[in-house]
Protein backbone atom coordinates (compact mmCIF):
# COMPACT_ATOMS: atom_id res chain seq x y z
CA UNK A 1 0.00 0.00 0.00
CA UNK A 2 1.20 3.50 -0.79
CA UNK A 3 1.48 5.75 2.27
CA UNK A 4 2.68 8.91 0.61
CA UNK A 5 3.00 10.37 -2.81
CA UNK A 6 4.80 13.29 -4.40
CA UNK A 7 4.07 14.64 -7.88
CA UNK A 8 5.97 17.25 -9.86
CA UNK A 9 5.34 18.94 -13.20
CA UNK A 10 2.26 17.00 -14.30
CA UNK A 11 -0.51 19.00 -15.98
CA UNK A 12 -2.30 21.14 -13.34
CA UNK A 13 0.26 20.17 -10.72
CA UNK A 14 3.59 21.95 -10.39
CA UNK A 15 4.17 20.19 -7.11
CA UNK A 16 2.02 18.22 -4.69
CA UNK A 17 2.86 16.08 -1.69
CA UNK A 18 0.29 13.84 -0.04
CA UNK A 19 1.04 12.07 3.21
CA UNK A 20 -1.03 9.75 5.37
CA UNK A 21 -2.70 7.78 2.58
CA UNK A 22 -5.18 5.13 3.73
CA UNK A 23 -6.80 2.06 2.23
CA UNK A 24 -9.47 4.30 0.67
CA UNK A 25 -8.53 7.86 -0.26
CA UNK A 26 -11.02 10.46 -1.38
CA UNK A 27 -9.89 13.68 -3.03
CA UNK A 28 -12.09 16.76 -2.97
CA UNK A 29 -11.53 20.37 -3.96
CA UNK A 30 -12.71 23.05 -6.32
CA UNK A 31 -12.55 22.64 -10.10
CA UNK A 32 -8.96 22.88 -11.39
CA UNK A 33 -7.50 22.00 -8.01
CA UNK A 34 -5.58 19.07 -9.53
CA UNK A 35 -7.78 16.08 -8.63
CA UNK A 36 -7.88 14.57 -12.12
CA UNK A 37 -4.20 15.35 -12.62
CA UNK A 38 -3.43 13.44 -9.44
CA UNK A 39 -5.18 10.27 -10.70
CA UNK A 40 -3.58 10.66 -14.11
CA UNK A 41 -0.11 11.09 -12.58
CA UNK A 42 -0.46 7.82 -10.67
CA UNK A 43 -1.62 6.12 -13.86
CA UNK A 44 1.26 7.66 -15.77
CA UNK A 45 3.71 6.25 -13.21
CA UNK A 46 2.20 2.80 -13.71
CA UNK A 47 3.23 3.06 -17.37
CA UNK A 48 6.84 2.63 -16.18
CA UNK A 49 5.90 -0.96 -15.38
CA UNK A 50 3.22 -1.77 -17.97
CA UNK A 51 3.09 0.55 -20.95
CA UNK A 52 0.21 -1.15 -22.75
CA UNK A 53 -3.28 0.27 -22.25
CA UNK A 54 -5.78 -2.46 -21.34
CA UNK A 55 -9.27 -1.07 -20.78
CA UNK A 56 -9.31 2.19 -22.74
CA UNK A 57 -9.05 1.37 -26.41
CA UNK A 58 -11.03 4.16 -28.01
CA UNK A 59 -9.74 5.38 -31.38
CA UNK A 60 -7.05 2.72 -31.56
CA UNK A 61 -5.24 3.84 -28.42
CA UNK A 62 -2.76 1.17 -27.43
CA UNK A 63 -0.60 2.61 -24.64
CA UNK A 64 -1.17 4.52 -21.42
CA UNK A 65 0.69 7.64 -22.53
CA UNK A 66 -1.48 7.91 -25.67
CA UNK A 67 -4.54 7.49 -23.50
CA UNK A 68 -3.42 10.23 -21.10
CA UNK A 69 -2.63 12.51 -24.02
CA UNK A 70 -6.14 12.05 -25.43
CA UNK A 71 -8.31 11.29 -22.42
CA UNK A 72 -9.59 14.86 -22.00
CA UNK A 73 -10.64 15.18 -25.62
CA UNK A 74 -9.96 12.57 -28.26
CA UNK A 75 -8.13 14.68 -30.85
CA UNK A 76 -5.52 12.22 -32.01
CA UNK A 77 -2.67 13.70 -29.99
CA UNK A 78 0.61 11.83 -30.32
CA UNK A 79 3.72 11.61 -28.20
CA UNK A 80 5.98 12.71 -31.04
CA UNK A 81 4.01 15.85 -31.81
CA UNK A 82 2.05 16.80 -28.70
CA UNK A 83 3.79 15.40 -25.63
CA UNK A 84 4.16 18.83 -24.02
CA UNK A 85 0.45 18.80 -23.03
CA UNK A 86 1.33 16.36 -20.26
CA UNK A 87 3.68 18.85 -18.63
CA UNK A 88 2.71 21.63 -16.25
CA UNK A 89 2.32 24.82 -18.31
CA UNK A 90 3.68 22.82 -21.29
CA UNK A 91 7.21 23.25 -19.93
CA UNK A 92 8.95 19.96 -20.53
CA UNK A 93 12.53 20.93 -19.59
CA UNK A 94 12.19 19.13 -16.25
CA UNK A 95 10.84 15.59 -16.00
CA UNK A 96 7.42 14.70 -14.67
CA UNK A 97 8.09 12.98 -11.37
CA UNK A 98 5.93 10.69 -9.29
CA UNK A 99 7.45 9.36 -6.10
CA UNK A 100 5.79 6.64 -4.04
CA UNK A 101 6.50 5.67 -0.47
CA UNK A 102 5.08 2.26 0.45
CA UNK A 103 3.95 1.11 3.90
CA UNK A 104 7.22 -0.75 4.48
CA UNK A 105 9.19 2.46 3.90
CA UNK A 106 10.26 1.62 0.33
CA UNK A 107 10.65 4.71 -1.84
CA UNK A 108 10.47 4.63 -5.60
CA UNK A 109 10.49 7.53 -8.03
CA UNK A 110 9.30 7.37 -11.64
CA UNK A 111 10.25 10.08 -14.13
CA UNK A 112 9.01 10.92 -17.57
CA UNK A 113 11.55 12.83 -19.67
CA UNK A 114 10.50 14.48 -22.89
CA UNK A 115 13.24 12.54 -24.72
CA UNK A 116 12.02 9.07 -23.58
CA UNK A 117 8.48 8.04 -24.49
CA UNK A 118 7.60 6.27 -21.25
CA UNK A 119 8.44 6.76 -17.59
CA UNK A 120 11.62 5.28 -16.15
CA UNK A 121 12.67 4.50 -12.59
CA UNK A 122 15.19 6.51 -10.61
CA UNK A 123 17.25 3.44 -9.72
CA UNK A 124 21.05 3.73 -10.01
CA UNK A 125 23.13 1.07 -11.75
CA UNK A 126 26.87 1.54 -12.39
CA UNK A 127 27.26 4.81 -14.38
CA UNK A 128 23.54 5.02 -15.01
CA UNK A 129 20.96 6.79 -12.85
CA UNK A 130 17.72 5.23 -14.10
CA UNK A 131 16.34 1.85 -15.19
CA UNK A 132 13.83 1.27 -17.96
CA UNK A 133 11.44 -1.62 -17.38
CA UNK A 134 9.73 -1.37 -20.73
CA UNK A 135 12.75 -1.75 -22.99
CA UNK A 136 14.90 -3.34 -20.29
CA UNK A 137 17.85 -1.04 -20.12
CA UNK A 138 19.91 1.28 -17.96
CA UNK A 139 19.52 4.96 -18.72
CA UNK A 140 21.90 7.86 -18.19
CA UNK A 141 19.75 10.95 -17.92
CA UNK A 142 22.68 13.35 -18.24
CA UNK A 143 23.73 12.26 -21.72
CA UNK A 144 20.30 10.75 -22.55
CA UNK A 145 21.80 7.39 -23.43
CA UNK A 146 20.47 3.90 -22.80
CA UNK A 147 22.31 0.61 -22.54
CA UNK A 148 20.21 -2.44 -23.32
CA UNK A 149 20.36 -5.08 -20.61
CA UNK A 150 18.51 -8.29 -19.87
CA UNK A 151 15.12 -8.57 -18.20
CA UNK A 152 16.76 -10.43 -15.34
CA UNK A 153 19.32 -7.73 -14.73
CA UNK A 154 16.75 -4.91 -14.61
CA UNK A 155 14.56 -6.88 -12.23
CA UNK A 156 17.56 -7.80 -10.07
CA UNK A 157 18.70 -4.16 -9.80
CA UNK A 158 15.16 -3.04 -8.97
CA UNK A 159 14.79 -5.84 -6.43
CA UNK A 160 18.01 -4.85 -4.66
CA UNK A 161 16.99 -1.18 -4.70
CA UNK A 162 13.65 -1.88 -3.00
CA UNK A 163 15.00 -4.34 -0.44
CA UNK A 164 13.93 -7.59 -2.10
CA UNK A 165 10.38 -6.48 -2.86
CA UNK A 166 10.86 -5.70 -6.53
CA UNK A 167 8.25 -8.12 -7.86
CA UNK A 168 5.65 -6.98 -5.31
CA UNK A 169 6.20 -3.30 -6.12
CA UNK A 170 6.23 -4.02 -9.87
CA UNK A 171 2.90 -5.86 -9.67
CA UNK A 172 1.27 -3.27 -7.47
CA UNK A 173 2.13 -0.41 -9.82
CA UNK A 174 1.75 -2.21 -13.16
CA UNK A 175 -1.76 -3.50 -12.38
CA UNK A 176 -3.26 -0.11 -11.49
CA UNK A 177 -6.58 0.47 -13.27
CA UNK A 178 -8.19 3.81 -14.08
CA UNK A 179 -11.99 3.94 -14.05
CA UNK A 180 -13.18 7.20 -15.57
CA UNK A 181 -16.16 8.49 -17.51
CA UNK A 182 -14.62 7.39 -20.84
CA UNK A 183 -14.78 3.77 -19.73
CA UNK A 184 -18.59 3.99 -19.67
CA UNK A 185 -18.56 4.45 -23.41
CA UNK A 186 -16.36 1.42 -23.91
CA UNK A 187 -18.46 -1.13 -22.10
CA UNK A 188 -18.28 -3.62 -24.98
CA UNK A 189 -14.48 -3.59 -24.93
CA UNK A 190 -14.31 -3.79 -21.12
CA UNK A 191 -16.70 -6.78 -21.18
CA UNK A 192 -14.46 -8.59 -23.63
CA UNK A 193 -11.40 -8.02 -21.48
CA UNK A 194 -12.90 -8.79 -18.06
CA UNK A 195 -15.91 -11.04 -18.43
CA UNK A 196 -14.04 -14.29 -19.01
CA UNK A 197 -12.10 -13.94 -15.75
CA UNK A 198 -15.19 -12.78 -13.90
CA UNK A 199 -17.03 -15.92 -15.00
CA UNK A 200 -14.04 -18.15 -14.35
CA UNK A 201 -14.08 -17.15 -10.67
CA UNK A 202 -17.92 -16.78 -10.63
CA UNK A 203 -17.57 -13.12 -9.71
CA UNK A 204 -20.59 -12.48 -11.93
CA UNK A 205 -22.62 -13.32 -8.80
CA UNK A 206 -21.39 -10.09 -7.24
CA UNK A 207 -22.64 -8.10 -10.23
CA UNK A 208 -26.04 -9.78 -9.97
CA UNK A 209 -26.20 -9.01 -6.25
CA UNK A 210 -25.34 -5.39 -6.98
CA UNK A 211 -28.00 -5.06 -9.71
CA UNK A 212 -30.66 -6.63 -7.50
CA UNK A 213 -30.00 -4.69 -4.32
CA UNK A 214 -28.85 -1.34 -5.64
CA UNK A 215 -30.87 -0.88 -8.82
CA UNK A 216 -34.08 -2.89 -8.34
CA UNK A 217 -33.25 -5.04 -11.36
CA UNK A 218 -34.69 -8.53 -10.85
CA UNK A 219 -31.53 -10.04 -12.26
CA UNK A 220 -31.32 -13.85 -12.19
CA UNK A 221 -28.19 -14.27 -14.27
CA UNK A 222 -25.99 -12.60 -16.87
CA UNK A 223 -25.18 -14.31 -20.13
CA UNK A 224 -24.02 -13.72 -23.70
CA UNK A 225 -26.67 -13.73 -26.43
CA UNK A 226 -26.06 -13.58 -30.22
CA UNK A 227 -27.21 -10.36 -31.86
CA UNK A 228 -26.61 -10.87 -35.57
CA UNK A 229 -22.87 -11.23 -36.07
CA UNK A 230 -21.94 -10.26 -32.52
CA UNK A 231 -22.57 -11.48 -28.99
CA UNK A 232 -23.89 -9.15 -26.34
CA UNK A 233 -24.01 -9.39 -22.58
CA UNK A 234 -27.59 -9.51 -21.31
CA UNK A 235 -29.20 -9.64 -17.89
CA UNK A 236 -31.76 -12.43 -17.47
CA UNK A 237 -34.92 -11.21 -15.75
CA UNK A 238 -37.74 -13.57 -14.61
CA UNK A 239 -39.70 -13.13 -17.88
CA UNK A 240 -37.35 -11.35 -20.27
CA UNK A 241 -33.80 -10.29 -20.97
CA UNK A 242 -32.27 -6.82 -21.10
CA UNK A 243 -29.01 -5.92 -22.81
CA UNK A 244 -26.37 -4.54 -20.44
CA UNK A 245 -26.13 -1.58 -22.84
CA UNK A 246 -29.80 -0.83 -22.11
CA UNK A 247 -29.44 -0.70 -18.34
CA UNK A 248 -29.57 2.72 -16.73
CA UNK A 249 -26.34 4.73 -16.67
CA UNK A 250 -26.02 4.40 -12.88
CA UNK A 251 -26.15 0.60 -13.06
CA UNK A 252 -23.56 0.61 -15.87
CA UNK A 253 -21.16 2.84 -13.91
CA UNK A 254 -21.58 0.58 -10.92
CA UNK A 255 -20.99 -2.56 -13.02
CA UNK A 256 -17.80 -1.07 -14.35
CA UNK A 257 -16.47 -0.24 -10.87
CA UNK A 258 -17.36 -3.60 -9.40
CA UNK A 259 -16.04 -5.59 -12.40
CA UNK A 260 -12.66 -3.88 -12.16
CA UNK A 261 -12.45 -4.02 -8.36
CA UNK A 262 -13.43 -7.69 -8.29
CA UNK A 263 -10.50 -8.62 -10.54
CA UNK A 264 -7.91 -6.27 -9.01
CA UNK A 265 -5.58 -7.75 -6.40
CA UNK A 266 -2.78 -6.13 -4.36
CA UNK A 267 -2.86 -3.02 -6.47
CA UNK A 268 -4.61 0.35 -6.68
CA UNK A 269 -7.80 1.40 -8.41
CA UNK A 270 -8.27 5.01 -9.52
CA UNK A 271 -11.87 6.13 -9.78
CA UNK A 272 -12.98 9.47 -11.13
CA UNK A 273 -16.31 10.77 -9.80
CA UNK A 274 -18.10 7.46 -9.10
CA UNK A 275 -21.21 9.43 -8.13
CA UNK A 276 -21.97 10.26 -11.77
CA UNK A 277 -25.47 9.11 -12.79
CA UNK A 278 -26.07 7.58 -9.35
CA UNK A 279 -29.14 7.70 -7.16
CA UNK A 280 -28.03 7.63 -3.48
CA UNK A 281 -29.30 4.07 -2.99
CA UNK A 282 -27.39 2.81 -6.03
CA UNK A 283 -24.31 4.70 -4.90
CA UNK A 284 -24.59 3.25 -1.38
CA UNK A 285 -24.81 -0.32 -2.69
CA UNK A 286 -21.94 0.23 -5.09
CA UNK A 287 -19.76 1.61 -2.28
CA UNK A 288 -20.74 -1.25 0.01
CA UNK A 289 -19.74 -3.93 -2.48
CA UNK A 290 -16.70 -1.93 -3.58
CA UNK A 291 -15.41 -1.74 0.01
CA UNK A 292 -15.90 -5.51 0.37
CA UNK A 293 -13.75 -6.00 -2.75
CA UNK A 294 -11.16 -3.50 -1.46
CA UNK A 295 -10.70 -5.48 1.74
CA UNK A 296 -10.89 -8.93 0.17
CA UNK A 297 -8.46 -8.14 -2.65
CA UNK A 298 -6.22 -5.74 -0.69
CA UNK A 299 -6.82 -2.96 -3.15
CA UNK A 300 -5.99 0.66 -2.41
CA UNK A 301 -8.54 3.11 -3.77
CA UNK A 302 -8.01 6.68 -4.98
CA UNK A 303 -11.32 8.40 -5.63
CA UNK A 304 -12.04 11.95 -6.78
CA UNK A 305 -15.43 13.43 -6.11
CA UNK A 306 -17.54 16.56 -5.79
CA UNK A 307 -20.24 14.72 -3.89
CA UNK A 308 -20.87 15.26 -0.20
CA UNK A 309 -23.32 12.34 -0.34
CA UNK A 310 -20.52 10.07 -1.45
CA UNK A 311 -18.26 11.23 1.40
CA UNK A 312 -20.98 10.69 4.00
CA UNK A 313 -22.06 7.30 2.62
CA UNK A 314 -18.47 6.13 2.31
CA UNK A 315 -17.62 7.16 5.87
CA UNK A 316 -20.71 5.41 7.24
CA UNK A 317 -20.19 2.17 5.27
CA UNK A 318 -16.43 2.15 5.91
CA UNK A 319 -17.10 2.44 9.65
CA UNK A 320 -19.42 -0.59 9.50
CA UNK A 321 -16.90 -2.59 7.50
CA UNK A 322 -13.85 -1.39 9.41
CA UNK A 323 -12.12 0.12 6.38
CA UNK A 324 -9.70 3.05 6.82
CA UNK A 325 -10.74 6.13 4.89
CA UNK A 326 -8.96 9.46 4.51
CA UNK A 327 -10.33 12.53 2.78
CA UNK A 328 -7.92 14.99 1.19
CA UNK A 329 -8.86 18.53 0.36
CA UNK A 330 -6.81 19.88 -2.55
CA UNK A 331 -6.15 23.55 -3.14
CA UNK A 332 -3.95 24.86 -5.92
CA UNK A 333 -2.16 28.20 -5.81
CA UNK A 334 -1.48 30.39 -8.85
CA UNK A 335 1.94 28.84 -9.38
CA UNK A 336 0.40 25.37 -9.56
CA UNK A 337 1.60 24.15 -6.17
CA UNK A 338 -1.12 21.96 -4.71
CA UNK A 339 -1.64 22.12 -1.00
CA UNK A 340 -3.37 19.10 0.52
CA UNK A 341 -5.20 18.92 3.83
CA UNK A 342 -6.00 15.49 5.26
CA UNK A 343 -9.35 14.99 6.96
CA UNK A 344 -10.39 11.98 8.99
CA UNK A 345 -14.03 10.83 8.93
CA UNK A 346 -14.26 12.33 12.45
CA UNK A 347 -13.08 15.72 11.14
CA UNK A 348 -15.78 15.59 8.46
CA UNK A 349 -18.40 14.75 11.06
CA UNK A 350 -17.37 17.68 13.32
CA UNK A 351 -17.26 20.09 10.36
CA UNK A 352 -20.73 18.92 9.42
CA UNK A 353 -22.02 19.62 12.93
CA UNK A 354 -20.36 23.03 12.82
CA UNK A 355 -22.09 23.81 9.53
CA UNK A 356 -18.94 23.71 7.36
CA UNK A 357 -19.21 21.73 4.15
CA UNK A 358 -15.79 20.05 3.63
CA UNK A 359 -15.92 20.90 -0.08
CA UNK A 360 -15.50 24.55 0.92
CA UNK A 361 -12.56 23.91 3.22
CA UNK A 362 -10.57 26.60 1.44
CA UNK A 363 -12.60 29.22 3.32
CA UNK A 364 -10.96 28.34 6.63
Amino acid sequence: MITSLEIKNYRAIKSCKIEGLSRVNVFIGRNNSGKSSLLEAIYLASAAFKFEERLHKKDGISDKISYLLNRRGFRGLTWDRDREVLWHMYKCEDPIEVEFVFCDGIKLKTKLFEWHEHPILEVPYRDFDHMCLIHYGAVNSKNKSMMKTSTDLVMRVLDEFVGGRGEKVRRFLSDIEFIDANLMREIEHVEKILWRDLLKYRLDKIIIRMLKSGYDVEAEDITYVPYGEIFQLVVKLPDAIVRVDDLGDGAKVSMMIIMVAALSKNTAVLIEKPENHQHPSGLAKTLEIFLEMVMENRVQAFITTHSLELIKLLNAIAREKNVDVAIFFMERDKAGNVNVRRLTPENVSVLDRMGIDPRFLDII
Partner: protein
Amino acid sequence: MPIVQLKPHENAFYALARKIVKELEVIVLCEGRTDAEVLKAIIKKLELPDINMGVTDCEGVPAIREITSYIATLSQISKKIKVIGVIIDADEYDYEQRARSVMNSLKSSGVPVKELNAVDENLFDIKNGKFPILILVSGIRDLPLKAIL
Protein backbone atom coordinates in the same frame (compact mmCIF):
# COMPACT_ATOMS: atom_id res chain seq x y z
CA MET B 1 -18.60 43.08 7.69
CA PRO B 2 -19.93 39.93 5.94
CA ILE B 3 -21.27 37.48 8.51
CA VAL B 4 -21.92 33.93 7.41
CA GLN B 5 -24.38 31.95 9.48
CA LEU B 6 -22.97 28.44 9.15
CA LYS B 7 -25.93 26.54 10.55
CA PRO B 8 -28.19 25.31 9.05
CA HIS B 9 -26.01 24.39 6.07
CA GLU B 10 -28.29 26.05 3.53
CA ASN B 11 -27.56 29.49 5.02
CA ALA B 12 -23.90 29.31 4.14
CA PHE B 13 -24.10 27.09 1.06
CA TYR B 14 -25.21 29.71 -1.48
CA ALA B 15 -22.81 32.38 -0.19
CA LEU B 16 -19.91 29.95 -0.39
CA ALA B 17 -20.90 28.31 -3.68
CA ARG B 18 -21.31 31.73 -5.33
CA LYS B 19 -18.03 32.86 -3.78
CA ILE B 20 -19.72 35.83 -2.11
CA VAL B 21 -17.49 34.95 0.84
CA LYS B 22 -14.16 33.41 -0.05
CA GLU B 23 -12.49 33.21 3.31
CA LEU B 24 -13.40 33.30 6.99
CA GLU B 25 -10.88 35.03 9.23
CA VAL B 26 -12.94 34.70 12.40
CA ILE B 27 -15.28 31.97 13.56
CA VAL B 28 -17.53 32.55 16.55
CA LEU B 29 -18.85 29.48 18.32
CA CYS B 30 -21.97 30.25 20.30
CA GLU B 31 -23.59 28.06 22.90
CA GLY B 32 -27.13 28.66 21.74
CA ARG B 33 -28.91 29.82 18.62
CA THR B 34 -30.13 32.96 20.41
CA ASP B 35 -26.55 33.96 21.29
CA ALA B 36 -25.71 33.74 17.59
CA GLU B 37 -28.66 35.93 16.64
CA VAL B 38 -27.83 38.53 19.32
CA LEU B 39 -24.20 38.57 18.24
CA LYS B 40 -25.14 39.18 14.61
CA ALA B 41 -27.51 41.99 15.60
CA ILE B 42 -24.83 43.69 17.73
CA ILE B 43 -22.18 43.39 15.03
CA LYS B 44 -24.51 44.98 12.50
CA LYS B 45 -24.92 47.97 14.82
CA LEU B 46 -21.20 48.42 15.38
CA GLU B 47 -18.79 49.89 12.92
CA LEU B 48 -16.24 47.12 12.71
CA PRO B 49 -13.34 46.66 10.29
CA ASP B 50 -14.09 44.62 7.20
CA ILE B 51 -13.55 41.06 8.38
CA ASN B 52 -15.31 37.91 7.16
CA MET B 53 -16.88 36.14 10.08
CA GLY B 54 -18.57 32.76 10.42
CA VAL B 55 -21.05 32.19 13.20
CA THR B 56 -22.27 28.84 14.41
CA ASP B 57 -23.90 27.36 17.50
CA CYS B 58 -24.12 24.17 19.53
CA GLU B 59 -27.87 24.22 20.00
CA GLY B 60 -29.18 21.06 21.59
CA VAL B 61 -25.88 19.47 22.61
CA PRO B 62 -23.61 19.87 25.68
CA ALA B 63 -21.83 23.11 24.82
CA ILE B 64 -18.35 22.69 26.26
CA ARG B 65 -17.82 19.25 24.76
CA GLU B 66 -19.12 20.40 21.39
CA ILE B 67 -17.11 23.64 21.35
CA THR B 68 -14.01 21.65 22.28
CA SER B 69 -14.48 19.31 19.33
CA TYR B 70 -14.99 22.30 17.00
CA ILE B 71 -11.78 23.99 18.19
CA ALA B 72 -9.80 20.74 18.14
CA THR B 73 -10.82 20.14 14.52
CA LEU B 74 -10.19 23.72 13.44
CA SER B 75 -6.75 23.74 15.05
CA GLN B 76 -5.90 20.58 13.07
CA ILE B 77 -7.12 21.60 9.66
CA SER B 78 -7.63 25.35 9.43
CA LYS B 79 -5.06 27.42 7.56
CA LYS B 80 -6.76 30.80 7.34
CA ILE B 81 -8.66 31.43 10.56
CA LYS B 82 -7.00 34.14 12.62
CA VAL B 83 -9.23 34.18 15.71
CA ILE B 84 -11.81 31.87 17.26
CA GLY B 85 -14.44 33.41 19.46
CA VAL B 86 -16.49 31.46 21.99
CA ILE B 87 -19.68 32.76 23.57
CA ILE B 88 -20.83 30.63 26.43
CA ASP B 89 -23.36 31.01 29.24
CA ALA B 90 -22.09 31.37 32.80
CA ASP B 91 -24.86 29.13 34.17
CA GLU B 92 -24.28 28.68 37.89
CA TYR B 93 -20.50 29.17 37.67
CA ASP B 94 -18.47 32.33 37.93
CA TYR B 95 -17.03 33.72 34.72
CA GLU B 96 -13.48 32.52 35.22
CA GLN B 97 -14.55 29.02 36.28
CA ARG B 98 -16.62 28.72 33.12
CA ALA B 99 -13.78 29.92 30.88
CA ARG B 100 -11.35 27.64 32.68
CA SER B 101 -13.59 24.63 32.07
CA VAL B 102 -13.37 25.37 28.31
CA MET B 103 -9.58 25.52 28.58
CA ASN B 104 -9.35 22.29 30.60
CA SER B 105 -11.58 20.53 28.11
CA LEU B 106 -9.35 21.74 25.25
CA LYS B 107 -6.24 20.54 27.10
CA SER B 108 -7.71 17.09 27.67
CA SER B 109 -8.57 16.88 23.96
CA GLY B 110 -4.93 17.48 23.09
CA VAL B 111 -5.32 21.05 21.82
CA PRO B 112 -2.06 22.88 22.64
CA VAL B 113 -3.29 25.72 24.87
CA LYS B 114 -1.29 27.80 27.33
CA GLU B 115 -2.61 29.93 30.20
CA LEU B 116 -5.95 31.67 30.51
CA ASN B 117 -5.71 35.47 30.63
CA ALA B 118 -8.51 37.70 31.84
CA VAL B 119 -8.99 40.55 29.36
CA ASP B 120 -12.05 41.87 31.15
CA GLU B 121 -14.42 40.66 33.86
CA ASN B 122 -16.12 38.18 31.54
CA LEU B 123 -13.72 38.09 28.60
CA PHE B 124 -10.80 35.68 28.51
CA ASP B 125 -8.02 34.93 26.11
CA ILE B 126 -6.35 31.56 25.59
CA LYS B 127 -3.13 31.48 23.61
CA ASN B 128 -2.96 28.66 21.12
CA GLY B 129 -0.08 27.91 18.76
CA LYS B 130 -2.29 28.52 15.76
CA PHE B 131 -4.78 31.23 16.70
CA PRO B 132 -5.97 33.04 19.84
CA ILE B 133 -9.20 31.82 21.36
CA LEU B 134 -11.36 34.53 22.93
CA ILE B 135 -13.98 33.36 25.41
CA LEU B 136 -16.86 35.61 26.32
CA VAL B 137 -18.86 34.30 29.25
CA SER B 138 -22.34 35.72 29.08
CA GLY B 139 -25.18 35.80 31.54
CA ILE B 140 -25.89 37.27 34.95
CA ARG B 141 -24.61 35.12 37.77
CA ASP B 142 -26.83 36.48 40.54
CA LEU B 143 -30.23 37.47 39.41
CA PRO B 144 -31.29 40.64 41.31
CA LEU B 145 -34.63 39.04 42.08
CA LYS B 146 -32.98 36.04 43.67
CA ALA B 147 -32.26 37.95 46.90
CA ILE B 148 -35.84 39.17 47.13
CA LEU B 149 -37.26 35.71 46.58
